[in-house]
């Protein structure tokens, strides 16, 4: 009995220990935002902050252009999430309720294939394409390419949800004389809220964090989103740890908040996405 207790205790220690190991870098980052660089040098990086002032946040946001980067990130993320969900609902509906010629080609050859293509594979021709369209240094270029990739992913998530809905739902609506357009938006979409939340949250997090696509397409420092802004900032202010950690906190906090709010759905979505 005693050894059983020790084994149980050891398992708890392992679970909590790994949680601390994963979180510690974020705690250090967050603590540093309340300190000053001279304080880090004098009292070492592990000391606790002495006072909780938001000075560093104010400086990074308003003197080091993170307010601009925030706006740019929102200007990219909001249309990508909204647009890709509308696109995905439409295509998922078409790919789940009827059969038609070339359906498998669209499903496997376009949508599933689109999900497998990583940013790295397309970065060079994407730049050439956007350049010839005159969209380099225009947020629209990042929005369009992120939107397409996200629409494919969300189509698969929402489609598997639609496939689980009973046939009678569609039949009875058609007997009532509803068009497919009405059936999609009035009946299927409200039911699909869980799948929409999952894919929307993941799209938001991924779009917020994208680095390569905007790196290739946006060169004007006034138009870059947060991850690029952070990279630029840390290159310029290597010697000021609290300011850089404040920038990292500002970049990391919104996705962490989304994750903590919608946690089980996000984990489920990534697992599902991974399983596809």
């Amino acid at each position, binding site marked *: 009995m005693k050894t059983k207790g020790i084994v149980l205790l050891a398992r708890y220690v392992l679970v909590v220990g790994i949680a601390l190991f994963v979180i510690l870098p974020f705690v250090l980052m967050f603590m540093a935002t309340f300190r000053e660089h001279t304080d880090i040098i004098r009292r070492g*990086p592990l000391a606790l902050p002495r006072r909780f002032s938001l000075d560093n946040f104010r400086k990074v946001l308003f003197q080091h252009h993170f307010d601009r980067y925030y706006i740019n990130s929102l200007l990219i993320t909001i249309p990508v999430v909204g647009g890709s969900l509308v*696109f995905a609902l439409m295509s998922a509906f078409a790919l789940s309720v009827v059969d038609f010629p070339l359906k498998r080609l*669209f499903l496997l050859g*376009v949508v599933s294939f689109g999900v497998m293509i990583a940013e790295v594979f397309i970065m060079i021709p994407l730049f050439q394409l956007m350049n010839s369209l005159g969209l380099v240094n225009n947020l629209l270029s990042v929005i369009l390419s992120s939107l397409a990739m996200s629409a494919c992913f969300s189509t698969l998530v929402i489609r598997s949800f639609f496939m689980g809905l009973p046939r009678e739902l569609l039949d009875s609506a058609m007997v009532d004389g509803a068009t497919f357009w009405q059936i999609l938006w009035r009946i299927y979409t409200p039911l699909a809220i869980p799948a929409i939340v999952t894919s929307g949250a993941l799209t938001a997090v991924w779009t917020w964090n994208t680095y390569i696509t905007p790196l*290739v397409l946006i060169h004007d420092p006034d138009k870059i989103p947060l991850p690029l802004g952070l990279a630029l900032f*840390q290159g310029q202010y290597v010697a000021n740890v609290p300011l850089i950690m404040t920038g990292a906190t500002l970049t990391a906090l919104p996705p962490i908040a989304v994750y903590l709010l919608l946690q089980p759905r996000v984990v489920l979505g990534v697992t599902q996405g991974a399983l596809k």
Partner: protein
Amino acid sequence: MFGAKPFKRKMILWPYLFLTPTVVSTILFVIYPFLANFFYSTVQWDGFGPKVFVGGGNFVALFRDERFWSALVTNFLYFIFVTALPLFFGLVVASVIARGRLAGTRFFQSAYFIPQVVAAIALGTIFRWIYAPLFGVLHQVFKIIGWEEMSRSWLGTPETATTAVGLIGTWAWLGFCIIIFVAGIQKVDQALYEAAILDGANSLAQFRYITLPDLRFEIAVVLVMTSVQCLGSFAFAIVSSTTAGAYGTRPVALYAYQLAFVEGKVGYASAVVVVLTILMFAIAAASLFLGERRAQE
């Protein structure tokens, strides 16, 4: 599959209209660039002037390119840190904590996933400070335990830089692996374990003959996810925000980027991307084959 069963009608137009936004945007902004990259790999081109067709010339040059091989070796090292280590420790930890649910650990396990939702650039930024000489976190820790002379600029020394960068990946992906494996183990029929215990199988044998074969699919998933990230955007962003590719830390993807956008060798860079693409699809196919076999058994 139960539920809606697709039904046939004569010549319907609306599904095509509903598919148009997704399909057109995907073909234009994802599939076209993907295919164009293969074409680019056969030309010599600075990105602006005329393209000169060189056939397989870029690939022949690639074969003799030392920088390419060194990037490939670096990627292989990252594979150990980003894929192999999290996979191994994830399996071990998950098989210890997943059996017989541990009450009250949900809260702690939710922390495991946080590195997955934070921009890799931000992760790299935090670790650049952790690894920094003089005012870095590790330096302070070494000082406290009295190993000050062992401390160094972890990211600024060729001997340690690749390992230091790789360990960021181990840290970031360990929790992800644990979560996937815990979910997998909890799906395994607990009666199997009970029977094994009655037969006198020790925990190592249980792991070898029950846990491991049953997790084949989850292992495949982890292999695909982590190796794609280790070849692709995760390693790219982590390296960009820590060493910028210096001291032998440059992965293939970053090399391709620098060739195309810094050195202006667009055709040659596309050939590098082609190799990367083939590598990634081969790893994904091999992993899925591994996972698929289990479904058929």
